[in-house]
C-alpha cells in the first residue's frame, strides 16, 4: 500500500498538522519509503494469533471509584498559553 498527496493531506488533517504545499511532495516520498519497508510484515502468517494487549502478564489493578486527587485549579492553568477567570481560553468557536 502506498500514499499519494491526497491521502497525506487527509491524514495531516486528521492529525491536525498544517502541511504547506511544498512540504507535501517530499513527505509523500518519505512516508512511502517507510510504508514499503513495513510491508514485509505481510509475509508473516498471523492466522489464529491473538494481538498483544498487555506487555507483561499482569491484570490491571482495581480501585474504588472515588475522587482521590484534584482541587488545584490554578496549578492546572499555570502553564496555559491563555486563561481567564479560572478557565482555559481558546479562539472563538461559535459565531
Amino acid at each position, binding site marked *: 500500500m502506498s500514499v499519494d498527496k491526497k491521502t497525506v493531506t487527509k491524514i495531516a488533517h486528521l492529525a491536525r498538522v498544517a502541511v504547506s504545499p511544498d512540504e507535501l511532495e517530499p513527505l509523500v516520498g518519505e512516508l512511502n519509503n517507510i510504508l514499503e519497508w513495513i510491508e514485509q510484515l505481510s509475509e508473516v502468517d498471523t492466522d489464529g494469533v491473538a494481538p498483544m494487549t498487555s506487555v507483561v502478564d499482569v491484570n490491571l489493578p482495581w480501585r474504588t471509584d472515588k475522587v482521590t486527587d484534584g482541587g488545584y485549579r490554578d496549578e492546572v492553568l499555570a*502553564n496555559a498559553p491563555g486563561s481567564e477567570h479560572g478557565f482555559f481560553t481558546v479562539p472563538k468557536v461559535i459565531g
Partner: protein
Amino acid sequence: MTKLTDLTLAEARDGLLSGEFSSRELTVQHLSNMEQGRELNSFIVETGEIALNMADKADQMIRAGNATGMTGIPIAVKDLFCTRDIHSCAASHILNGFKPKYESTVTANLWQDGAVMLGKTNMDEFAMGSSNETSYYGPVKNPWRATKENGEPETKDYVPGGSSGGSVAAVAANMAIAATGTDTGGSIRQPAAFTGLVGMKPTYGRCSRWGMIAFASSLDQAGPITRTVRDAAIMMESMASYDHKDSTSVERTVPNYEHALTGDVRGLKIGIPKEYRMEGMPEEIEKLWQQGIEWMKAAGAEIIDISLPHTKYALPTYYIVAPAEASSNLARYDGVKYGLRVEGKGLEGMYKNTRADGFGAEVKRRILIGTYVLSAGYYDAYYLKAQKIRTLIAQDFANVYEKVDVILTPTAPSAAFAMGEKSDDPIAMYLNDVFTVPASLAGLPAISVPAGLSRDAMPLGLQIIGRAFDEETMFRAAHALEHAAGFTAKPNIWWGEN
C-alpha cells in the same frame, strides 16, 4: 589522586559515607565540569543552585545516618521527566516554557533517596531518534572522537546515540556521576554503547511512567545510565517502585540488585540467537560478540545456540506500534493546556499551526505514519497485524527462556557515527535499534555493557537480555561480562579550555 568527577557511583557513595568528602564538594566539581563541557550541548538547563541545596540536604542525611545508595550523588535528568517548576519539554518546541507543577515518580524516588539534580539533559525530540539530532535544542556531541588510521584524533563530531544522548554525554564527559534515561526501543542501551557506558532498561512495569512525557506507552521505561554495572544496580533500586498512579506499574518487591552481583556465573545458561547474525553486520561487531561468548564460557557459563525466528520483523513491527501510540499520545499538544500556541484561522487553524510549528520533522513523520496505520480501513492491515506479530516475538522469547537464563547479543550494529551521516535517511537511522527493539516489544529487561573498541577506537557494547522481572540474573551476567571485558578506555578531552 583520582578526581571526584572520575569516581563511579559506588565509589562516590562509599566516599560520602566514610566522610572522605561531602556531597557539596562532589557537586561543585561536577558543576565546574558542566561549565567546561557546555559545547557538548549535553544539558538544556543547568540547575546549579538547586543542586547545591540538594547536596547540603544530602550531607545532613549522611550525618544523621539516613543515607541510601543514592544520597549525595549528583545526577543528570533527561528532559523527558517532569520535574516540578523546572523546564521539562522533552526537547520539543511544542512544550515551550513548560514547567510542570508535579514531579515524576522516578525522580521523586531519587530525590527521596537524597540524589542531587545537576540539570535537565538534551535528547531527541520526544525520544524519537537514535542520534540526538532531532532535538529542538540542537544536537549533542559525543565526547568520544574516532582515531584516524595514522593514529591522529579525528576533529569532526560524532553523535552520542539517542534518544538519551545528553544523558550519556554528561556521564561520559564526567559532568554527572550517573543519569536517568528512558528507553522505548533502545534509547538507553544504544547511546550507552556509543559512549562506553552501562545503560539498562528494566522489565516493563518496574518503573512508574507517571510524570514521564509519553512517547509510546506500551514500550516506554525509565532506566539508569552509569559507568558500571554495580552503579546501574544501585540506581535502579532507587528508581523502581510500584505506583498506583501508573496502572501498568507492577506491584512487586524491588530486590537489592547490588546483592545479585555475586561474580559467579558458573552453570548459567546463556542463549546466543542465530537471527542476530545479520547480513552486512560489520566484522568487528561479530568479532566482539564472539569474544563475549568466549568470556562467558571461560567464566563457567553454558553457551546454548537458540533461535528467535521473528527477530527480523521486530523493527518494522516497532515502527507501526510506536508511531501509532505516539500519534495518540501527542494529540494532547493542542496549544490550549500548555506550551506553544500559534494563532490561526479559528480553533482548528490554531491547532494545525501550533502543531506544524511545534513539532520537528521526525516527530511529524511519526505522527502521520501513526495516524495512517490507525485510520479507518488500514487499522487491521497495519496496527492489528503488528500487534499479532508482537505476540509472536514475545512468544519467541518465552520459548527460549525455557532453556536459557539470559541472552547475549551485540547492542548496536555499529559504533557511533559522524554527525549528519544518517540524518537524511530515516530507515538507516531506524536500523540502529535492530538489536534493542525485540526486547522492548517483549517488555524484557536488558542492559548494555561496554565491551571493546572499534577499529577506529570508538566504544562498542554487548547486550544481556533477561527474563521478565528477573533483573537480578541479568545484572549478575552483565557484571561477569563487564569484569571479563575490563573496559577502561575514556574519551580524550578535546572540549572546554583544554
